[in-house]
């Protein structure tokens, strides 16, 4: 996360909060990894990584494409470009049963509508399940991505509405109620190792599993991150400042985003 890319770092005025979030997320991926990619911000970050420091990153989409190398940013999880550029296209049952479930995927990239201090994710409802205030899309592939990938990275904008003391519904389990909970349930993956937001980076405390601010983006102070968090946010003693996006990262990201808005 904090490794300094070689190209020259840009000044905060030169990029948006979403851009540093996406660039930071892309840096969480290494070239020798397999990555289960959700659509939206995670997909943008994964495609950026593949075009910058991680050209051998293997992208797996739940529509059944293994090793997609999209030439433009896919607009949906089942975009034709994902199939056309894949090493293999398989059925949806197969992607879940043969590839995700056995723990073959190193990192799962998820978004969230609500997230709590133990990294549990809600994408199902706000309010009561049977009488919801807001009915959200639901689980999709997320519960099993969160359970089975070697580790999980969450990419989400940080607001008090999103970062809540307790999620209204656990759609995807993070650390549950704290240390040992995943292990007691027999979940295979390590869980959310990093939450990357538009303000900084949170990582689980090794002892308590509580998400702790470990890095702020340039120009963001701790107070602002605390205000954007619905629980009493813990801050790491060795808090760092995120390396700013380099101009080359930004150029690649912006070119990539342009490919999505130019419809084929």
């Amino acid at each position: 996360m904090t490794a300094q890319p070689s190209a020259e770092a840009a000044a905060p005025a030169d990029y948006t909060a979403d851009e540093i979030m996406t660039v930071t997320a892309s840096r969480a991926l290494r070239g020798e990894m397999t990555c289960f990619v959700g659509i939206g911000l995670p997909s943008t970050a994964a495609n950026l990584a593949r075009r910058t420091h991680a050209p051998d990153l293997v992208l797996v989409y739940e529509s059944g494409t293994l090793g997609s190398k999209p030439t433009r940013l896919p607009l949906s999880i089942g975009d034709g470009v994902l199939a056309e550029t894949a090493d293999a296209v398989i059925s949806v049952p197969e992607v879940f049963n043969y590839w995700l479930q056995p723990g073959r995927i190193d990192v799962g990239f998820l978004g969230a509508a609500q997230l709590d201090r133990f990294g549990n994710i809600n994408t199902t409802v706000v309010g009561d399940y049977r009488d919801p205030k807001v009915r959200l899309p639901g689980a999709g592939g997320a519960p099993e991505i969160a359970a089975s990938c070697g580790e999980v990275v969450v990419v989400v904008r940080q607001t008090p509405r999103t970062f809540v003391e307790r999620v209204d519904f656990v759609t995807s389990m993070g650390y549950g109620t704290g240390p040992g909970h995943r292990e007691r349930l027999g979940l295979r993956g390590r869980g959310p190792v990093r939450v990357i937001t538009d303000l900084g980076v949170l990582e689980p405390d090794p002892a308590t599993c509580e998400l702790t601010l470990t890095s702020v983006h340039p120009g963001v102070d701790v107070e602002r991150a605390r205000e954007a968090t619905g629980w009493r946010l813990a801050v790491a003693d060795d808090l760092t400042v995120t390396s700013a996006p380099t101009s080359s990262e930004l150029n690649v990201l912006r070119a990539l985003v342009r490919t999505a808005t130019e419809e084929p």
Partner: protein
Amino acid sequence: MANTDEPSERHMPMAWIAPLSEAVADLVTDGDTIAMEGFTHLIPVAAGHEIIRQRRRDLTLVRMTPDIVYDQLIGAGCARRLVFSWGGNPGVGSLHRFRDAVETGWPVPLEIEEHSHAGMANRYVAGASGLPFAVLRGYVGTDLPAHTTTIKTIACPFTGEELTAVPALNPDVAVIHAQRADRRGNVQMWGITGVQKEAVLAARRSLVTVEEIVDDLDPRPGGVVLPGWAVTYVTEVPSGAHPSYAQGYYERDNAYYRAWDAVSRNRETFTSWVSDMDRRAS
């Protein structure tokens, strides 16, 4: 949705080729359980519109990713129950008709049975395999089992390990869209083929709309072929997946998906969209 175990009911030497209105009229009855599948690609939208036109009611709609065609069916009052794992307008936002039905019961209350993708995919696999249930590592630690009765635990008889069981899906009718069929009703699709084969094989009856009916299906890389004897009806409906896409035929109409957000956002614009269906079709 019990399995009838009547092989004679389930296959015939070849599929019947008929117009869409006839196939839907013969296959879909009020109260049926209908699965319309297609994962972004090859969504059977034209068939869904025909179900709205024929004013079917009290349907149980099954689909991993209910998107705008299900929003339309729900808003038009065809459904009383939805079995699903992710409902949204991909890349745009909420399904407003779905939310209105769940949140306020308009136009009719919508019961939901909610799963994950892994669970739904395995429920179709069990249905296609003639098994009453499937086993997976799923739902553990989530709140889904507390709200969905069709999720249980099962112990491995060899290791004692606890896993999750979900019951088979055996819809009355499966509806899918494919690129091509031949004159015997052998169906060919390629690109992202999702869970469509499993949906058809899990169902008692099936309808496949296709871009074109051809004399011979020349082999295609990545092609999946469903034999005509495993399909009930095949119907030629060019652009039958619009606004989704059909690889090799047309691209996704992203503008339609974006425009749907405004059409569906309130009941009045949606109601006039439904009233205008026949005019648009002609």
